[in-house]
């Protein structure tokens, strides 16, 4: 029962935060609403017994990415953006997309759990305290993707420096 209560509380936080992010005018307020939304996602991860994802969500998204957002907002002059029209003319396309996804959602909810056949979870997926198992997987089976991702980060860093650097 408590689970259900927390689920709806966090879901409300996620959706309310997302709604405020796109509707508020002041960009700093938008960023703060996004923090609320992302924290809600972290809560849902915790309800699913995914402690590792919960921690990563807080540290990386709420901590890292959002601080970066706020820095960019402070460094870049966004006063003009606050005066611009908030909703552009693409709203018809947006409504069409929302309706299509809504219809899809209704279809899956109505056809019940049989519409989605999920794979059986692995033996430690739903046990509490599975962070050690994730670490073990990451440094054994998934070691190569884990390492090769550093090349990806290197390329991104070199690329952004190259793009940002002005001619001497």
């Amino acid at each position, binding site marked *: 029962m408590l689970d259900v209560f927390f689920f709806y509380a966090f879901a409300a936080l996620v959706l309310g935060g997302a709604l405020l992010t796109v509707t508020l005018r002041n960009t700093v307020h938008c960023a703060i609403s996004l923090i609320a939304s992302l924290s809600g996602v972290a809560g849902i991860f915790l309800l699913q017994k995914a402690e590792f994802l919960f921690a990563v969500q807080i540290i990386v998204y709420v901590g890292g990415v959002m601080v970066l957002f706020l820095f960019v907002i402070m460094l870049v002059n966004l006063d003009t953006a606050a005066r611009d029209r908030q909703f552009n003319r693409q709203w018809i396309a947006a409504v069409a997309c929302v309706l299509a996804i809504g219809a899809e959602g209704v279809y899956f909810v109505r056809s019940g759990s049989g519409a989605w056949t999920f794979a059986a979870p692995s033996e430690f997926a739903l046990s509490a305290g599975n962070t050690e198992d994730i670490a073990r997987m990451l440094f054994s089976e998934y070691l190569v993707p884990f390492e090769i991702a550093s090349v*990806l980060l290197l390329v991104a860093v*070199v*690329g952004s420096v190259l793009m940002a650097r002005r001619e001497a």
Partner: protein
Amino acid sequence: MPANMAPSSAEILRFLPEIILAVMGTFIMVLDPLVRGKSPKIFGHISILAMLAAIGASIFAYTNPGPAFSGMLMVDGFATFFRVLVLGVGILAVLSSYRFLDRERADTGEYHALILFSLVGQCVMVTANELIMIFIGLEISSIATYVLAGYLRDDKRANEAALKYFLLGSFATAFLLYGVAIIYGITGTTNLSAIRAVLSNTTTAPAGAVVGAAVALMFVGLAFKVSGAPFQIWAPDVYQGAPTPVTAFMSAGPKAAAFAVFLRIFMTAFETVGTGWEPLVWVSALLSMTIGNFAALVQQNIKRMLAYSSIAHAGYVLVALAARSEIGTAAAMFYLAAYAMMNVGAFAVVAHLSGKGERRLSLNDFAGLGVKQPLTAALLTIFLLSFIGVPLTGGFFGKFYIFKAALQSNLVWLTVLGLLNSAVAAYYYLRILVVMYMHEPGEATLAVEPLSFGLSAALILPAIGTFVLGIFPSALLQFADKSSIFGR
């Protein structure tokens, strides 16, 4: 570290090409501040040596084929074929870059390092037998290519190209990732062979609608990367705006690697649900051929024309995928090899002619090239004839095998429409020939400089390759046939 966690030497050997490329790319960046301004050409030499070494390592790794790192990689004939192909494209692109970088005073280590990193990504993509590896490889290759497209920062068109490519590319990546997530949710694995096992098992197979959604999402992401219609909108602007040697590189290398991923995912993991995705590929193939060829007819800018032609050629390869057979896979492999050579060659000619700041890119700038520079004109003629698919060139056998595979899979209408399309295509390729040989030399042709050593090599090597594939196709085709069953 426990002994069982250390990778065996055989596994490291199977990963050696990527290791060489990544180490050499980093080495170039370390070397850059030490020799900057003194001998800028050295970076090109180093990266060519690195790519040659990686080709050697790829071939050596194939002497002992098999999986590596708990099934993340699969070194088979298919992977070796595409590794050598993308590395060859890299070498030709660097060869055609020497003169360009010198002319634009932009010879830095980063250019070559990014090419090497992009190749790391492509080699990972073509070797990976697992969706996470494929995704990381695709991202390494794509991000390096986005940056290369905007390498000339002071050029407005290059900036536009890089931004468009980056935004649309990220969007397409998101589609692919959604597909991967759904597949993982319904099968519980990201390994292609394991996905195949789950999907082909009729008792445990997940609901068709969900599998269909996942396959469709991954199709969108991959079709974008190979510039297949209706996800081809970015290609003309990006190919036009990027520096020409970079265009040569990204229209052949990353495209071939993306097709390799396309073939591997759809012919191993999703082969058992083939009747579901065949119509998607069918429609996309026809649209790509038609849009590409008809839009190319009206282009005056040579890079835009070649961009639309490249969309059309992606359509031909999609025909081979729609055939859903091992012969189709082998035909696609052969075609991609032939296409890479003629495309890099054609763009190298454009790089040669365009001049400082790439101002001479209109079709009329080719007027009288046949008189002024008979060798360049002759080489471009070879590439154009191969694009059309004239016998004795690689392009002929490429198209021949693709349409043969399509007919064997009873894709009669697609074959007929594809052949009609190639007839349309002949018109705009021949138009370049007419301008080149029948018109008086214009201002642009008179100002063109003699061929440099690097560019001659970047033109003559693919020309030889085009002839070899056109006259002795059987050697490569036999290898492709043998590799088309993958290591599954």
